[in-house]
């Protein structure tokens, strides 16, 4: 099969690679680029474990072809830290125990980030809606809601500066 050239920026690094045009974004991120923080938990776009941000929007990376994001900016959980400092949402996840086995966590973080960027002052119900597309079998979600609520309330604001 003829390979196509993909130009993509992942976690602020530009890449050029030849790929099967039918490759899913999640396959390129994990298998070609080695960002294995992004997981896969289903084949039906149901679980959200593969959620990444594309130009600031949360997208399940199993639902798009890599070629569809040619020229765009992708952020994965590996791209949340800045200069070795954890992002406020990552810190809040640690403080609130908002993960257990950790397999859904990368996707959950990316949905959370995109959601709070869009809606920085949500109600807890809105937070729940914001992460509704992400399944977690371990936590029962409430610790995640508390973590995001703490971020929204500004408990981690000094970290942003």
């Amino acid at each position, binding site marked *: 099969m003829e390979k196509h050239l993909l130009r993509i920026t992942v976690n602020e690094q530009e890449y050029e690679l030849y790929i099967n045009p039918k490759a899913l974004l999640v396959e390129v991120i*994990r298998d070609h680029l080695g*960002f*294995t*923080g*992004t*997981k*896969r*938990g*289903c*084949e*039906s776009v*149901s*679980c959200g*474990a593969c959620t990444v941000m594309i130009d600031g929007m949360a997208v399940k990376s199993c639902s798009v072809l890599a070629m569809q994001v040619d020229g765009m900016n992708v952020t*994965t*959980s*590996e791209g*949340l*830290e800045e200069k070795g400092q*954890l992002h406020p949402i*990552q810190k809040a*996840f*640690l*403080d*609130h*125990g908002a*993960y*257990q*086995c*950790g*397999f*859904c*966590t*990368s996707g959950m*973080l990316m949905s959370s980030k995109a959601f709070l960027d869009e809606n920085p002052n949500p109600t807890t*119900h809105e*937070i*729940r*809606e914001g*992460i*509704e597309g*992400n*399944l*977690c*079998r*371990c*936590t*029962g*979600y*409430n*610790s*995640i*809601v508390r973590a995001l609520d703490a971020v929204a309330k500004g408990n981690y604001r000094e970290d942003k500066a």
Partner: protein
Amino acid sequence: MKYNVINTHVHNIDGIAKVTGRATYTFDVKIPGMLYGKILRSPHPHARIVNIDSSKAMELMGVKAVVTGKDTLGVKQGIWRRYSELCDEQILPLEKVRYIGEPVAAVAAVTEEIAEQALDLIEVDYEVLPAVYEPMEAIKKGAPEVHEGVERNINVTRHIEWGDVEEAFENSDYIREDWFKCSGQAHMCMETRCAVASYTPEGKLTVWTSTQSPYYIQGLLSGVLGLRESDIRVIAHYVGGGFGGKFELDAAQFCSSVLSMKLSKPVKIVFSREEDFIATKRRTPMFYYVRTGVKKDGTFMARETRVFTDGGAYTGMGATALYLTGFFHSFPYKWAGYRYDGFRVYTNTLPSTSMRGFGAPQGMFCSETQIDLIARDLGIDRVEIRRKNAHTPNYEVPGQATIASCGLTECLDKIEEWIKSRGDLPPNRGIGISSYGFMSGGIFNWFDSPYSFSSAVVTINYDGKVDLHVGCQEIGQGSNTTMAIICAEELGVRIEDIRVHSGDTAECPPDLGAWGSRQTLMAGNATKMAAADAKRQLLEFATAKIKPNIVYDLDIKDRWVHLVARPERGLDYFEVVKDALRGKGGQRIVGRGFYTPHRKGMISPAYSYGVQALEIDVDPETGKIKLVNCVTAHDCGQPINPIGLHGQLEGAISMAAGYGFLEDMPMEDGKIMNPNLVDYKIIRATEMPETEVFEIDTYEPEGPFGAKEAGEGLTNPTAAALGNALFDALGISVKQLPITPEKVLNALREKKLEDNK
């Protein structure tokens, strides 16, 4: 007693790896030269394998090997190793398949796509056999035989009895009989079953896998592959969930090993979500008949229960679930006479096994639902009837269990208070309650392990950093953190002084692993003992240096080695470590610990207790249930890791409430109708109720620092509390799980007919 580390706000020690995407799961493992495997599965629920022709598949470019049962030693394996008749599963069977999805062949190829294509080229001739799907059918005379020579397809029977049951019924004022049906449930771990097996020509096999017990997998692989146990290294550093579904040998582990041994190349097999649904194992579906006799005042007298469980095609951990459901069906109440007869029945369906709660959620759903019905029939308050019959400290369940700590009565008081605080509820709202309890690890040794149940090694390095090697398995429940806390507390150092090593049979001592809520108590005791051993060695040197009066004791707290009676007199921990190492000829300090329960009855060394109240909102038009509040009064002894504990509680609620009203695995002719996450519903963030927990302080003498079970027992009450909340809201009782809108509407219709009579 004040603790420095225990019950403080400690971050999970694997947390940073998990929130930064650095944690490497088996799903992520990639090693040079690795091939990809896929499994061909049976489309038939019951068929004889006449012939398998893989020649066309082998011709496909990129295919390296195809294996079938003929390429294996043909060993029938099972986790109940002590009992050969219960070792009934050949992964890659030689003669016949017994459920849809059973593996018949496995392929290794250079890519996953090629392996997948190769599956279509394998030709299997089947002779289709008559099949049976329901235990109540399979038990009949003349039903198809799932396993040859197993009479009426009865796989295992269990009998539990104490007291004079007949006399206790005779002394009862009121007797009630009910039938219940409890459904199956998928473990639905976010990480599906997967393994990377790498066999090398020196005869050694390394297997990365997603498992709850590396030691079990090592032992089981040794049995089916004919390798020495210690030539097999099982690695499971990060595991994407287990919930009782990942401590038996699975086809990913076995097939990747067989392929790797054939090729001397690493082979990776990852189950698709569909494979994970149709071809692993599931929570055991159960039919419960319950007959209960009580006094007019609500005193429980007698209970007689008969249970038929749908075993599916193989035994797995189902034999244990059959026992535990029967025992915990009595729990946490006192009975003058109790009799349980359980029958596990083979069918041509996906095998059933352990899942979080291990049979207890089923047993408690039936028990707690019936208790509410009895309370209504007799006009007794539902909290009062539970209080009257509750286990109490130092109670002995005749011939079964010795209870030491038990905070059940306090839990009931707390929940009663909370219900009162809710006042009058709006229409269509209801609160249901359920008591529960669970074991802190099992005493039984069906695996026939010659090793201690748990072991730990504490090594203190020159710089004071402590290496803690444990065989207990981190699967997300936080056991690495719990062990680090216990070690730091006992040794008198800080959490950041501890580095935990687990999930690797080559590095860590054997341990039965993460199941049956055993690790906090058992591995916790081993860790505490190892830390105490290391501390004793340090204190020998400190004593020589401080030269106190012989009557004084020394201890270490927060890196300060000191006289207990005069804490200001002491030495820096790091200095003592350096001196001690010098005094030992430069050897690091090594402490050892181990634990195996003794003289603690048949089941477990200790029991957790609790009461849960669940408030729901029902729409009588649609039958839809919304979870509003879930409040739990919980006795887990001394809490060790509060963040982890709260997480276990909420996670259990989501899983157990899902079992109560959402999750189901409906089948048609042995085929699961919803093997994907669109149709199989688990609770999402918007469906989760608010949660609150009251920790009831007790001290468990058998547990480390007084701790006991804290994660699995919490799966036991929620389905029952949900059903009882429906009963409270609308006066209807649904005796079949899950309580779907359809069942709610049917029950409402029946009630209307009844009321109109």
